[in-house]
């Protein structure tokens, strides 16, 4: 076996590995879309999530027509509270959102209620209400523009955004 043959073998192996990888990624994606990331109709995945800092997710998700916080949402908000305690000069806005399957005006109110549910929880963990403003966008700013149960679950959210 000369050097050229060795190179070809290496490249082939690499290609096979790439294919295996790609298959794994694809299957991971398809399980996500098969509502593996929904608990009831609350989104539990990470696809749209951004981070305020390492390990501090910026958003929590809600069930249809609901503004109550799930166990997972509370855990996320506690991480946010810890982060905000460490960064005393940081203020945030919590944006409340609804999915597109409701009337516009009710959704504006619902988004406001969701954002305040998150704000109230942060306040019980010692973050001053003065540091947290809220704004509702109702159904006006979907993060996922699709018309599917998964997209709607990703859009029913409150997002904590740094303002300074």
């Amino acid at each position, binding site marked *: 076996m000369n050097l050229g043959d060795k190179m070809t073998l290496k490249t082939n192996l690499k290609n096979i590995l790439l294919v295996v990888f790609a298959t794994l990624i694809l299957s991971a994606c398809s399980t996500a879309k098969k509502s593996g990331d929904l608990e009831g109709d609350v989104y539990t995945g990470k696809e749209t999530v951004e981070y305020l800092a390492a390990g501090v997710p910026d958003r929590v998700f809600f069930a249809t*027509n609901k*503004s109550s916080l799930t166990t997972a949402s509370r855990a996320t908000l506690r991480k946010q509270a810890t982060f905000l305690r460490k960064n005393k000069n940081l203020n945030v806005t919590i944006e409340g959102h609804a999915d*597109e*399957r*409701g*009337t*516009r*005006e*009710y959704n*504006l*109110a*619902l988004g*406001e*209620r969701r*954002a*305040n*549910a998150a704000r*109230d929880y942060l306040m019980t963990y010692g973050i001053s209400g003065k540091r947290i403003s809220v*704004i*509702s*966008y109702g159904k*006006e*700013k*979907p*993060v*996922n*523009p*699709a*018309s*599917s149960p998964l997209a709607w679950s990703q859009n029913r959210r409150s997002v904590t955004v740094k303002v300074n």
Partner: protein
Amino acid sequence: MLKKIIFYLFIILSTTNANALIEVDITRGNLDPLPIAVSPLHVDPKSEKYKDLEVKDLGGNIAQIIENNFKGTGLFNPLKKDAFVQKPDIAHLKPRFEDWRLIKAQALITGKLLIKDGKLKVEFRLWDLTAAQEMTALAFTTTPSNWRRVAHIISDKIYERLTGENGYFDTRIIYVAESGPKNQRIKKLAIMDQDGFNTKYLTLGNELVLTPRFNPTSQMVTYMSYFRNMPRVYLLDIETGTQEVVGNFPGMTFAPRFSPDGKKIIMSFAKDGNSDIYTMDLETRVVERITDHSSIDTSPSFSPDGKFIAFNSDRSGLQQIYVMRSDGSNVKRITFGKGIYGTPVWSPRGDLIAFTKMHKGRFYIGVMRVDGTGERLLTENYYQEAPSWSPNGRVLVFYRETKAGSKGEGFSAKLWSIDITGYNERRLSTKTDASDPSWSSLLSK
């Protein structure tokens, strides 16, 4: 922009004749539309040039608008012009009734116009072909650039004569013009004639604007804007373009509407996770709290006599429609059907409330009596909401959105109208995607 146009009525030859035979029954659907011939208006050859107006086509163009208006009601069947049997000027003097009856017309509209000294003079007549007599005649003078409005006013007069109800053609619709991808929508306030012409944009699209609604005289609009990222209720004077915030409370104000006398704005105010209904007197700026409940209370709409308010609340757990006295007392839930209900809007006649109903993933526009009985669903679709009444209480305009694909493709929002009979569903033509329509009152009254 919406300059108040003064029409000088200088001849009224209205022949009120008890023996007139034709009458359109509008309590039923469009099962048997009335065949009507709209003759092109005769253009007086003495007419002078006016700006870039195609004066010689004006008679035909006005007739075309009248025809489109009538067709749009579903109550009339305008006949094809190539079958017309008399020249416009001759027919206008006195039609040969038997000849027009041959083409199966039951009513005929004729007219003539003259442009002189920068003024447009129009007269028209409505003929009952079966009874062989004139039913209505009217003439007026206005500025020639108002020629589309002339056509709408003629349409209203004829509609009123034939149906016994007020027309709704000389009206405008204010709405939110939408463009751009679904997750980055640009929204502007837009206003147009009810037939989709003369579209004008009232905001630039720099901030999100929602839910514009006319005041009773259709000179002012209240709407919600995210100007400076503060979602608040605003007031806009269409004529002057002046905008001011009216709901500058420490929180979000939204879902505004005028009281029937135009003196107050009723709206929701959301703070600390709770939305309640408030009114603000536009003159005194006195604010009154109308509801005080831990639930969401929104989408308020006054009854036309100002004594009651219909609104949307989830105090029972899910969205339902409630009615209360205008001081907030005597709250009664009126919806008990399957599904959930939103966007109650009191009809201008006072007898019905239009609403959006959501049930098993479908959206319905419907009407019910003001006590919640007699629910009738007029149209079902993937997504539609926000009905607004035509000023005569006969037609609803609303918006409808389509289902989007995985990247948001295929999404659109359009305005639609439907008669309260459930017949005659139509898409309104708009220059862009559109939502949140509000129908004006009759502009000439």
